[in-house]
């Protein structure tokens, strides 16, 4: 057993972090919110160059084949840096195209030239207006484009969305979308916690930094507690997917419940402890705050995921 990231994986994460830190992601998100997708497309391509979008594309189409741990790792970084756009959906949809008429899109997806989106059965696709192809699980359908609470995100199902019939492929894609969304939520929460710790260390009220108040300390300690115990669930789920383990669906649901909940707790704490400034659109933190709310429920609310855990949990004998 080696339940730890290896050096190569850490280096990969660090390279993505460096790329994203230098990219002014908040400006990219604001441009997208204002209707200008060019900066996001450019950044997407650079992430593609760094290998981010090849992680779920089969090797014969220019990808690495599915690498769930790297995928989780990558999404944590994308979440931490607040990347807008349908990253989880692109990854999940990547696994559905081989052998279909659209398989020619895959090399472009792997390189970051093309963006995909995917709608859950009965749900909306994230950012279909940005995507070069949209898949929808379940029946063919259409839903007009609408604005999300997250200003850089829009939801809908375009008329030309490609319906994907239920089957093992769509189940695997649903699981991957949930896994990636869990990772995005965890990364989002990590940034929110770090930013709030930074703020409360310097913001003074009543003559002292507000981070010296016990109520502030305890709230942030609780956020760290949630994030730190969500993280092993995330990587545990990634390993289960990698091993095609029997309990993978349960592990993904557990990870999504924990990461989605922890990310939202981090957002609520960030909002409360920043006070009014955190509540303003113009303060960049609001990008992460709004995203945390949206990621909490996307591809499975904590409530829905908990039920999945209980319904599908193998008996103890089978687990060992």
């Amino acid at each position, binding site marked *: 057993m080696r339940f730890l990231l290896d050096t190569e994986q850490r280096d990969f994460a660090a390279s993505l972090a460096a790329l994203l830190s230098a990219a002014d992601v908040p400006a990219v998100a604001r441009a997208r919110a204002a209707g200008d997708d060019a900066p996001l497309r450019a950044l997407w391509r650079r992430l593609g160059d760094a290998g981010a979008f090849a992680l779920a594309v089969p090797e014969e189409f220019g990808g690495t084949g599915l690498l769930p741990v790297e995928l989780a790792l990558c999404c944590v970084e994308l979440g931490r840096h607040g990347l807008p756009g349908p990253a989880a959906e692109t990854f999940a949809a990547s696994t559905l195209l081989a052998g279909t008429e659209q398989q020619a899109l895959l090399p472009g997806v792997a390189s970051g030239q093309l963006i995909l989106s995917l709608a859950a059965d009965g749900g909306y696709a994230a950012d279909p207006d940005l995507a070069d192809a949209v898949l929808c699980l379940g029946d063919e359908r259409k839903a007009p484009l609408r604005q999300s609470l997250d200003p850089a995100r829009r939801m809908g199902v375009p008329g030309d969305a490609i319906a994907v019939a239920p089957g093992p492929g769509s189940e695997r894609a649903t699981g991957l979308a949930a896994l990636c969304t869990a990772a995005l939520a965890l990364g989002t929460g990590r940034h929110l916690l770090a930013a709030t710790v930074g703020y409360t260390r310097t913001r003074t009220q009543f003559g002292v930094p507000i981070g010296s108040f016990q109520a502030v300390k305890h709230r942030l300690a609780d956020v760290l507690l949630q994030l730190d115990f969500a993280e092993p669930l995330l990587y545990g789920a990634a390993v289960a997917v990698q091993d095609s383990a029997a309990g993978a669906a349960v592990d993904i649901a557990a990870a999504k419940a924990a990461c989605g909940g922890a990310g939202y707790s981090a957002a609520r704490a960030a909002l409360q402890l920043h006070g009014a400034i955190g*509540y303003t659109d113009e303060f960049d933190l609001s990008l992460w705050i*709004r995203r945390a709310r949206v990621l909490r429920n996307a591809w499975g609310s904590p409530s829905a995921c908990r039920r999945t855990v209980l319904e599908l949990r193998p008996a103890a004998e089978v687990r060992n």
Partner: protein
Amino acid sequence: MDLQIGTEEQEFRAEARDWLRRHVPARRLPSLETAAGFAAHRAWEQQLHADRWSVVSWPRRYGGRDATLLRWLLFEEEYYAAGAPGRVSQNGINLLAPTLFEHGTEEQRARILPDMASGTTVWAQAWSEPGAGSDLAALRSTATRTEGGWLLDGAKTWSSRAAFADRAFGLFRSTPVEQSGARHRGLTYLMFPLDAPGVTVRPIGRLDGKPAFAEIFLDGVLVPDRDVIGEAGQGWRAAMSTAGNERGLTLRSPGRFLAAADRLVELWRRLGDPGDTAMAERVADAVIGARAYQLSAFAAASGEGGPTGAASSLNKLHWSELDLTLHETALDLLGPEGELADVEEWSEGYVFALAGPVYGGTNEIQRDIVAERLLGLPKGRRG
């Protein structure tokens, strides 16, 4: 002990209900945090006022109906149950007016209240400053004595309604701390026009982008003496009574939450899976919280009136958390629709509710106050 609504109150309520049924706009007005919505809401205030429904608890001479606290509670229940628009005048009516009743002069009341009641003048609050949020006594904007009045300088921020309102009220330092000896002394409570020379208003977008508040920059803004509330230098006490109003019953009436709870139950009946006990319990919690608030207000109306002082802190903790429970539950019930920016009134209500634990004194401060003043726990350094 009884909860019977007497015949006269029944009649009052029926009259309000009837009026609302006939006048509440069939379509929801645009958000009052937008220019068009602000104008539409101001027009609605004028309509309310024309039939004396804008300030029912005020004396008749200022446009009210001398309504008791109970009648006001019943009016508010009817108001929100009817789906009537949010009150763009609420900062004036619920925060400034009580202060004028308590600390203002008759001249001020006669001059200011009728225009407030009619929506002719819409007021913004101007409490916080960049370095003075929870710690209000840290404020640094100044009022300097000049012939017949005061010159205001400095900056206020998080002023709700200030993007579109006519006038504002706030505290200014008229004696430096070095001279007054304490941070909450030497403060003067002043009112000023938002279009006066020297005033610059910079709207600030809320979490949903709407300019729900603004920064106000003041550069030698002249305010006449008659716009000082209470005595110069004694503003803190008057401000604290305003803060009590911000936390007490009047700003956030039980009727508001009862109506939201009813809408949540409707949403549950429409969209919820009846077998989903987890969601059912969350909906029920909100219903129970709203009912508790209503009954607690009825107790207040039967006795000493609404909560004041530290008791208002308990009140604020209750309604601010209830509001979040209501809206978070609704968003979850809505499923994929729940993340959209304009789902009925839930999305905007959610964004609004998120601010509840912060404004009017953060809930952390409220818990300190409750513990120290209601429970008698020893004061630490603030907290």
